[in-house]
């Protein structure tokens, strides 16, 4: 999985059957130091993530393994909202409550 930061949402009225009713978010990929990279991805939300959240992004066929994305034509899904990322005793990221 990769880390990403939610920067927006895709609004689309005409979608493929099974994608209807699913929230599609725009995430910017983060590197291992939680710094933003230039790459972004559209991904199906399965955990009610919001803009500003640092999330776990699952790609390829594994993205279709959640209850919400089973059989859906997606190859990228948000599967978790990250609380903390730490390296040794160093905290690289801590989710704040007042987002």
């Amino acid at each position: 999985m990769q880390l990403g930061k939610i920067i927006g949402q895709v609004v689309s009225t005409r979608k493929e059957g099974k994608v209807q009713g699913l929230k599609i978010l725009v995430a910017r990929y983060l590197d291992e130091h939680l710094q933003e990279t230039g790459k972004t991805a559209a991904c199906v939300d399965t955990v009610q993530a919001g803009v500003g959240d640092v999330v776990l992004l699952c790609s390829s066929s594994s993205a279709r393994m959640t209850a919400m994305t089973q059989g859906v034509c997606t190859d990228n899904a948000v599967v978790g909202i990250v609380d903390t990322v730490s390296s040794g005793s160093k905290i690289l990221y801590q989710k704040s409550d007042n987002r």
Partner: protein
Amino acid sequence: MIFAKVIGTVVSTSKDPNLEGKKLLLCKEVDHTGKPLNSYHVAVDAVQAGEGNFVLISYGSSARMTELTKNAPIDAVIMAIIDEVQITDPAKSAKKGTSEV
């Protein structure tokens, strides 16, 4: 499979039910000599790895082929902790001096 070094942990409370009870580790990809490469993975731990360990990561749909990760939305799994990488071809082994792992 790719070589990686465990550099941190990732904690998440609101996640897919299939991810519950699984340890997520932040892993930096390295080459066979231990030289860091330009990518990383958040991988599920299937072998009780810890920070600093030199490990093997299986990625993509193959990552779901352990009892722990079966049918879960997981695209990277730590499937072995490496004791040693023995390179027989002298021309290929640790060109850049000593290993960093």
